[in-house]
């Protein structure tokens, strides 16, 4: 065998090992059932339920699609499982009461530690803590820019978006927002970010180059607060989970004008979007179901019963 074909062969084996074929499954953490529901993304049917640990909340997938991570809040750890075989691969320490996290394109996990006013960077392969960054009180939402250069951590009781530079892991900006910032997300080009402020009832748009808020709108009422937020792949449309409003709200991503409310289940909390941008899934805590939204029509095309208090969603596509 010639040297070049040996190299080629090893490369193709490596590629196979590194990039698992997507299963097309949708994984949902059920906070009060201590489980993960495994949904077939084509049939919208639950095909398995994994007993995962006490109070699972945040969920994410490795960039190569080979591992799904779940924050087990009551057990202070993250569990990794195989999205294909659904077998637990390993678990590692995640600090006290782990909740929301995001997975960086380089594979590292960025997690907010609510009781310790810090964010922690963990290598999920080794469980090694790479960095700890002090942020404001009650850090909650974590968003990572698609280019991997910036991480936003929201601090709910300090009312700020902390922008963390990667790989330096220092804070490059602190942006004061409305009361109790909950979630953030970046546009595909990493130039803008959106965030929700729960008590302030606000949705806002930030220009990441200047660190300035360039648009802001009020949303919800005294009981219905904006929760999770997502932006469409083309950057034109914003989706906000409306909590007890029982709607996913559709906004013009530029003007933040409210275009439509999509009725979903009760107390809608978490959102996830497919890679092609054509579907959005919402976790509806009180009605214990998932709504599947077609983003071309902005309509619910399926409702899937899952465990109690579905919290986080990740798609292996």
């Amino acid at each position, binding site marked *: 065998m010639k040297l070049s074909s040996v190299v080629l062969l090893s490369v193709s084996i490596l590629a196979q090992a590194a990039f698992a074929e997507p299963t097309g499954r949708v994984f949902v953490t059920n906070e009060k059932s201590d489980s993960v529901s495994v949904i077939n993304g084509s049939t919208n049917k639950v095909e398995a339920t994994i007993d995962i640990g006490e109070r699972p909340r945040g969920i994410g997938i490795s960039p190569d699609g080979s591992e799904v991570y779940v924050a087990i809040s009551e057990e202070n750890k993250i569990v990794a499982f195989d999205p294909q075989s659904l077998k637990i691969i390993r678990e590692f320490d995640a600090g006290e009461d782990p909740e929301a996290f995001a997975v960086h394109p380089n594979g590292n996990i960025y997690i907010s530690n609510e009781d310790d006013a810090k964010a922690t960077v963990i290598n999920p392969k080794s469980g090694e803590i790479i960095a700890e960054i002090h942020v404001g009180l009650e850090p909650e939402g974590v968003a990572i820019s698609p280019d991997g250069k910036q991480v936003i951590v929201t601090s709910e009781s300090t009312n700020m978006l902390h922008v963390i530079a990667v790989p330096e892991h220092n804070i490059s900006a602190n942006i004061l927002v409305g009361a109790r910032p909950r979630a953030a997300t970046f546009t595909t080009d990493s130039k803008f970010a959106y965030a929700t402020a729960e008590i302030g009832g606000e949705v806002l748009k930030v220009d990441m180059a200047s660190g300035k808020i360039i648009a802001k709108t009020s949303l919800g009422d005294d*009981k219905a607060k904006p929760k999770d937020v997502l932006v469409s792949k083309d950057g034109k449309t914003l989706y906000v989970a409306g909590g007890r409003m029982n709607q996913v709200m559709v906004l013009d991503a530029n003007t933040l004008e409210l275009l439509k409310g999509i009725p979903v289940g009760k107390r809608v909390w978490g959102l996830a979007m497919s890679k092609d941008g054509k579907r959005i899934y919402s976790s509806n805590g009180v009605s214990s179901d998932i709504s599947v939204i077609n983003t071309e029509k902005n309509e619910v095309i399926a409702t899937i019963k899952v465990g109690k208090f579905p919290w986080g969603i990740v798609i292996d596509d």
Partner: protein
Amino acid sequence: MCSKCSPMISATVITMALLAGNSVAETTEINLSFIGDTNSLAYQGAQQGRDEANIQGRFMGQNYTLNASPEDSTAIVAAVDAESLRKLSASHPNKTIFNLTAEDDALRSECLANVVHIIPSKAMKRDAEAQWLQKNPDSSAKAQTWHPTFRKYAASQLNSRFSKTHSVKMDDTAWAGWAAVKILSDSVVRGQTSEAQTLLNFIKSDLAFDGQKGISLNVRNTGQLRQPLLLIENDKIAGEAPVRGVTKTSNLDSLGLASCPK
């Protein structure tokens, strides 16, 4: 510092070399004055508020203290009786006096321009209890502003932060002390000022404060902080007021004197 100087002087700008990662170069010193018993829960609450304000201050460029004299302070945090509050109000007309402990209804109807009552009035508590009784005629629940077992709206996080630091449970006056300092620091960063009179104006007209009670809080023209109350029976939380079903839960003005007598 001199007592003849304008209140603005009390905010001294000090340039500090800060650790990498906290990207502010200048820190504004904001000195508050605490009047009252420093062995009280009200004081411990104010200390908690100061510590939390300083966490934000690390990022936004402020440092708060609680031990200025009333003359040299940006605002006064007072755990005193009604008569002492009136005197403080009269002798410091251009700065905020936070009332942490005096529940007297008369203080609200007097509409002292510079007093912000964090603690609810007796009338607010009476109204909360009356609403509760309409739905629960046999209940003996009493209204409180806070409770150490309060968990909703991230109240549990505040309760655990306080008890961890002070080895004691957060009560109504401790919450009031915490809220007073956080309202002040929130107004400093949102109003972008450390001038006493400007802060007072901001607090009275522009406040949108997260008191970890689930709804944005602001101030009536009487000086009273609008807020939901808890109904406590056998040292447990039985409900919240405004009472759902009796009125809208957002109808905070159903509790106590809603505005100044004409």
